[in-house]
């Protein structure tokens, strides 16, 4: 996260780290149910074998595992069948964990939006992750407040790429607060009155975030995929297993 700040442990209990040896942390991910996390499809490019991955939850400092940390192996990776690597469209995947997580203060699922539920432009939401900070990779989870930007306005920043309805944009023209390499798959969450947080986006792509070419970040639009997500979880829970 560029321009963010270090998060307090437990503040984002749905944030998880998708890890693979020998690199360790590769991408962010988001807990949505006891056995299911979401991330983006591009995290698995060239590494679609579930056996090489693990998901770490309840962690704040990647360098100092805590007693609240839970680790699960990956049982199944479900990539969106329309994921297009060339244009980074339909950039979403579902990960089935090897076993249920134990829900604690530090490990809790986030809410999914309703299908086609929109988050209005100019709403302020949060992004989190262990991605690049512009000058270094952090050990501690970072958080940043970003503003939702309309697709039309977002398109004007990316004249070589098409912003589709499967994407939402958030951030600032100046790029002061933005997601960056290593944040992919992590959450863009917005708070509802009553203190409930809903997952509206998954960090997907943007400009080269620590260059001088700035602009907002582009996130996979979770509400576009809710029906697909629910179907896949149902199929893999009740019909295939």
């Amino acid at each position, binding site marked *: 996260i560029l321009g963010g700040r270090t998060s*307090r442990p*437990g*503040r*984002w*209990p*749905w944030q998880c780290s998708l890890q693979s040896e020998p690199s360790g942390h590769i991408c962010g991910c988001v807990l*949505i*149910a006891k056995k299911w996390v979401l991330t983006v499809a591009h995290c698995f490019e060239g590494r679609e074998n579930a056996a090489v991955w693990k998901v770490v939850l309840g962690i704040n400092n990647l360098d100092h595992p805590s007693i609240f940390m839970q680790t699960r192996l990956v049982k199944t990776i479900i990539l969106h069948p*329309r994921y297009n690597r060339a244009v980074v469209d339909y950039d979403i995947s579902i990960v089935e964990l090897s076993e249920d997580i134990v829900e604690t*203060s*530090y490990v*809790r*699922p*986030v*809410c*999914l939006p309703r299908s086609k539920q929109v988050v209005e432009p100019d709403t302020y939401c949060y992004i989190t992750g262990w991605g690049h900070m512009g000058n270094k990779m952090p050990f501690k989870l970072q958080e940043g407040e970003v503003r939702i930007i309309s697709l039309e306005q977002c*398109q004007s920043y990316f*004249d070589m790429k098409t912003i589709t309805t499967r994407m939402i944009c958030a951030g600032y023209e100046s790029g002061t607060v933005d997601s960056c390499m290593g944040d992919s798959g992590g959450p863009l*969450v917005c708070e*509802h009155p009553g*203190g*409930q*947080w*809903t997952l509206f986006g998954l960090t997907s792509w943007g400009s080269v975030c620590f260059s001088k070419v700035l602009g907002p970040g582009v996130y996979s639009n979770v509400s576009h995929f809710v029906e697909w997500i*629910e*179907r896949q*979880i*149902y*199929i893999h*829970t*009740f*019909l295939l*297993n």
Partner: protein
Amino acid sequence: CIYNSCFDACGESSLCDSDSNQTNCSQCEPITLELCLNLPYNYTNFPNYLGHRTQKEASISWESSLFPALVQTNCYRYLMFFACTILVPKCDPHTNQHIPPCRALCEHSKERCESVLGIVGLQWPEDTDCTQFPEESSDNQTCLMPDEDVEECSPSHFKCRSGRCILASRRCDGQSDCEDDSDEEHCGCRERGLWECPASKLCIKQEMICDGFPDCPEKMDEKNCSFCQDDELECANHDCVSRDLWCDGGIDCSDSSDEWDCVTLSKDVSSSAFLTVHRSATDHQVCADNWQETLSQLACKQMGLGELSVTEIIQEQRHPWKWLTLPSDWQHKNTSTLHELLVAGHPCQSRSWISLLCSEQDCGRRPAARMYKR
């Protein structure tokens, strides 16, 4: 002269012994270079004036990229015509000889467009020395000059109202490329090679029609995609599957959609949420005979809801129109869904029906921040 046919074309003379005569001997062939398909002639022969030996070589040459890019600058109205006369020179079918562009066409092109190339640090193609081309003749047969009606833009270009040629891919891309914005006019789906969703202006790709993923409002792109028999139902991917197999516990649609949404809760007038199973495409209520609490939990989980709150057994004298019952030996069956345990055609002895209240799983809550006295 490399090929026998060429030898024939030249006649049985010794002209074909030297390299230069081999060149002169090549036969006319149809033009296939996309950039030049709108010329007032259809045949060419090689090598061309740029030294390319075949059309394939011409198509991947630097010049075949340069001229289309240059034509967008609107430097000369007949630049593309000139470019084609040297890339795919006109072939005279009687003599199998080139008909070159006229010197004036070459000079006008160079005069107006060379300076544009200079701005970006590029040079005019070396092989286009205009003195090699003849002066315009009176009968207009020894060299080529463009007619008034010659197409200025190649088929891979869009012609702006102003006359400028822009790449066809830039038409209707949401950005104005013609100075008069004409590339962004009449941008209907059909003009862009897309399909227009009925009752909306949304354009989608042809391959998105009937692919099992709704893209248009009201799912119009996924309608009328299959023609199932009366005793069949349409799967989400448009396969046809027998009604009887719907929600029977086995996957019959290749996308498993016959087993989706089989268990629901339906409200009745008394606002009880009766457990309902959508067997064979018809809603059935569930008889309370042999019911156990674990089944209530399974039903709630199957509906994507969290924990079970309340199971109610509601006795009604009035039978529902359709119902399903649990066989007495259901616990011996190894199944993962509730609906595959239930059977039809058995009496409901208790005349009682299952009503459930499931709670949604809690989500999106952060632990309260710790308080520190200051």
